[in-house]
């Protein structure tokens, strides 16, 4: 055969990590912290906000999960996982000290180098706050490298709001313009959390310089259209609107085929796409 190729370390073999802590964010979303086992400590575990990893529970299977921690806080990997199927049910049975397998990081992640110096609008819906937390923490940790930071977050109801105490605390911060909303039922939280869809928070987003702003969006599939419509009102160029999308994946490395859209594998060229990609590549959202 003619193709020259470089042997990779085994692509499909996970690194074993130990669960060191967990807590419930909502009734069905649990937050996990994992650290690589001693023998892997020499490896470079750098990653970008927006990347994902394949999490393995031997005997149950493997699935992709967004990394929720920031690479600025090295050594610990954080995930927030909703209990929704076979693998995630099993993940909820994990105890501190239990071992999981992780492969990655995979995917393109957010183009941080292009975002430096820019004003950033982050729009999260529901579980979209998981990958966007990685970006949020990254920007907060390197605050001087970015311009304004606007963060809009919408959840279904108060119970479903992820990282809720953290966010409420952040409302006091002068480092970001944070606005929270729930679709329905903000009784008792009227001072901090609005009622209505996340699009309704755009009334607080003013004086946007379209030339110098990048918007990052992640949420359930049905949320993208309405949010992008709001962002376009600020005259942002289509490639300045970044969407973090989801697909079925079995490998994470462009081989199993499941995440294909046109000829592009979401695990390689995504999961972060521009709005231009969305218009250009049918089937994206």
């Amino acid at each position, binding site marked *: 055969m*003619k193709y020259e190729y470089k042997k990779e370390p085994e692509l499909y073999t996970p690194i074993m990590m130990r669960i060191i802590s967990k807590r419930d964010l909502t009734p069905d979303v649990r937050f996990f912290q994992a650290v690589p086992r001693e023998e892997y400590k020499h490896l470079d575990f750098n990653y970008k906000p927006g990347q994902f990893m394949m999490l393995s529970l031997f005997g149950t299977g493997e699935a992709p999960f967004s990394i929720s921690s920031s690479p600025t806080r090295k050594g610990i990997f954080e995930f927030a996982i909703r209990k929704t199927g076979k693998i995630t049910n099993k993940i909820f049975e994990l105890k501190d000290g239990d071992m999981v397998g992780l492969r990655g990081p995979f995917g393109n992640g957010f183009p941080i180098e292009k975002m430096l110096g820019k004003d950033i609008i982050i729009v999260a819906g529901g579980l979209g706050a998981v990958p966007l937390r990685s970006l949020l923490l990254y920007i907060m940790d390197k605050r001087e490298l970015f311009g304004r930071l606007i963060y809009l977050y919408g959840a279904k109801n108060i119970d479903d709001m992820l990282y809720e105490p953290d966010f409420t605390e952040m409302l006091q911060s002068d480092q970001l313009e944070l606005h929270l909303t729930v679709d329905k039922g903000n009784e008792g939280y009227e001072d901090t959390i609005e009622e209505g869809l996340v699009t309704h928070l755009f009334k607080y987003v003013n004086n946007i310089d379209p030339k110098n702003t990048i918007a990052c969006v992640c949420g359930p599939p049905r949320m993208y259209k309405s949010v992008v419509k709001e962002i376009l009102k600020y005259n942002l160029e289509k490639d300045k609107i970044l969407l973090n999308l989801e697909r079925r994946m079995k490998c994470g490395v462009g081989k199993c085929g499941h995440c294909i859209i046109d000829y592009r594998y979401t695990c390689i060229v995504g999961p972060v796409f521009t709005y231009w990609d969305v218009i250009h590549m049918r089937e994206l959202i």
Partner: protein
Amino acid sequence: MRILKLSKKDEKKLYDVLIEFGEVWAPVSKGSKYVYGKIEKKEDLIIYEKCILPIIPVKKFLMPQDFTMLNFTPSKYSIPEEDIPTTVVVGVPACAIHAVNILDKFYTTDYVDNYYMKRREKLIIVGKSGLPEENCFCHKTNTSIVEEGYDLFLFDLGDYYLVWVGSEKGDDIVRKGSDIFSEEVPKDVSKKFVEFRRKKSNCFTNDVDLEGVTDLMELNYNAPFWDEFGEKCLSCGQCTMVCPTCTCFNVIDDLALSAETGGRRRYWDSCMFKDYSLVAGHHNFRESKAERLKLWYTHKLKAFIGHFGSPSCVGCGRCIETCPVNINIVTVVEKLKS
């Protein structure tokens, strides 16, 4: 390139040379069809005049239909030690070698798939140019001639085979078989070769017209005929199983009865299956059969060009032969053009 002659009277001795290099596999008949089977004695190695397209193409040597990637306990795993035999596969048509070239590109792009490469390095391909079958349309996909990807390639020129040596491994084989491979190629070989090519060209009966289909796929993205095909499609996935360039796989964990140990299995999957694009929360990105059919044809005829510069259909016609409800490249292209 070295070009040699193998007399037909020495044809049966070919097996003795090849078996020195590894297991010999070739098309063997099974009912009215053919499969690649292991050849145990030299009489069974038959070189057919026609192109033989076994039901499952050469990919079966390179990515087994089902294999164990890892063995595990709840907290540890290991990669199974496999003794992969060197395999010499004989009688591989040009289109199938094009397909292997596509697989090579696919499995070495972005990330290198070691499970594939381990097997690829152990595969020796002895190609053979044959006369086309009824469904063949490699003359329309530019895959009826092959320039690389084989170790040896045979042309049937009457009372001898012209043997093209395509790799170092191929060169080892002809050196080993120096008593049957001769440097003395007859003087009229060019004339014979042109005659053979002309005869082959005249044998094609499938004249599906692929000109412009890439753009037509785009123009017909919302055409109603996709739904008509969708209604007929059985989602059986046979088209993807027999396609020489389909690579999709699924991965699942199997547990032993003890529920403590098990294996992670990788097996062929199909984009025709309903749960192919299903994600958490039961959101299915390709719920309808029409969407899944469209994905396959888009990937074969258009999308692959964006990724690798050429379509991934090599014109073997297996989908025409196999689809139980007559959804295939010919019927799809007909609709695209109407």
